């Protein structure tokens, strides 16, 4: 986790870890969505894959409707759906796979990297501010976001906006990073004393993986829910 292999193109530096993990999770998301959306029918049978996809869509749509039951919410539904799927799959990726070559991590949860989560948070927060301006006009947006309830609180509000961006990204990163950290510690424990440590570490790993699956789902849910809340704060 600490060291990564990098490569540069046109003066920009890329981590192999970020590139591979992001691409793998996005590919999984896309293939899942593609697989579940083939041969659509008006009335899908009880346990069909179409129902699964529709359940996910309903789930994310309900998250949006929870805080944004209006037109803004409708336009946001697809973004929330994509964001939820990507974060969810990304969170689970590192639970099952972590490829480490020569101390360099190549494949893990993309969301265990602060740059990735901050980028996602940046996208979400930018969208919320953009929609705020688009919905209320710049003047009202500025007034309601930075000068309420009193204009004296402007510095505080400014900090609040910044911290909400920071916490949105860091919360996700912290949870997933900590989960992976514990998993790699358990792997070290398993290696430490042969069979005597391997068996208990194996059992602990199973337990921790189960917990990580849960955490990953919760964090994906929290991220998109907070995104809709931030949008609703700025558009109303």
């Amino acid at each position: 986790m600490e060291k990564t292999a990098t490569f540069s193109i046109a003066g920009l530096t890329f981590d192999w870890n970020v590139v591979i993990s992001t691409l793998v999770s996005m590919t999984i998301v896309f293939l899942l969505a593609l697989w579940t959306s083939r041969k659509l029918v008006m009335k899908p049978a009880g346990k069909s894959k179409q129902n699964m996809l529709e359940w996910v869509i309903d789930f994310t749509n309900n998250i949006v409707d929870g805080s944004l039951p209006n037109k803004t919410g409708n336009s946001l539904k697809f973004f929330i759906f994509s964001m939820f799927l990507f974060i969810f799959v990304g969170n689970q990726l590192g639970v099952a796979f972590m490829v480490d070559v020569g101390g360099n991590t190549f494949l893990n949860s993309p969301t265990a990297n602060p740059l990735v989560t901050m980028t996602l948070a940046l996208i979400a927060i930018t969208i919320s501010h953009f929609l705020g301006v688009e919905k209320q006009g710049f003047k009202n947006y500025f007034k309601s976001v930075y000068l309420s309830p009193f204009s004296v609180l402007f510095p505080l509000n400014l900090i609040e906006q910044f911290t909400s961006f920071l916490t949105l990204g860091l919360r996700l990163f912290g949870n997933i990073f900590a989960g992976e950290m514990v998993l790699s510690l358990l792997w070290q424990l398993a290696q430490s004393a042969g069979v005597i440590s391997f068996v208990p570490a194996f059992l602990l790993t199973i337990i921790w993986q189960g917990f990580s699956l849960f955490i990953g789902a919760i964090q994906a849910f929290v991220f998109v829910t907070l995104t809709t809340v931030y949008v609703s704060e700025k558009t109303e």
Partner: protein
Amino acid sequence: MFNQIVLAGASEGLALGNMLFVLVAFLVLMLLLKRYAWGPVVKMMEKRAEKVAHDLDTAEEARQQAEEMAAKRSEQLQSARTEANGIVSDAKTAAGKQRDQIVAAAQADAQATKEQASAQIAHERSEAMAGVKGEVADLSVTIAQKIIQKELKLDDQKALIDAYIEGLGNK
């Protein structure tokens, strides 16, 4: 965690490459998802919602129609029953009237026949009586002639004729 960001930022120019990569990759993912999964599925879901709403409307309409038809039918049934009752009672009255007529006519007929019969009987009896009377008269004349022929002598005959002639002369 801060450390990592700061380190990454310090060493690699704010790690712009990674962030740009994630951003672009996410945009591409969104495009692909919209094109191949979200678009068709949401379209299908909307179509289904529309169909369900439409079907509900149609069902409501059909139910109303059925109710209307049932009401109409029961109304028709009621009126038919009333009509039938009317016809039966009419027929009953008509039959009663006809019966009375027939009975009255029969009675009158019987009366007339009876009267005619008794009149004929009376007539025949009187005719028979008249016939009997005539015969009795003839018989009595014959008997009288026979008696008179036997008893009437010439002188007496003469005296009788004279008396008759005299009577003619007096007249």
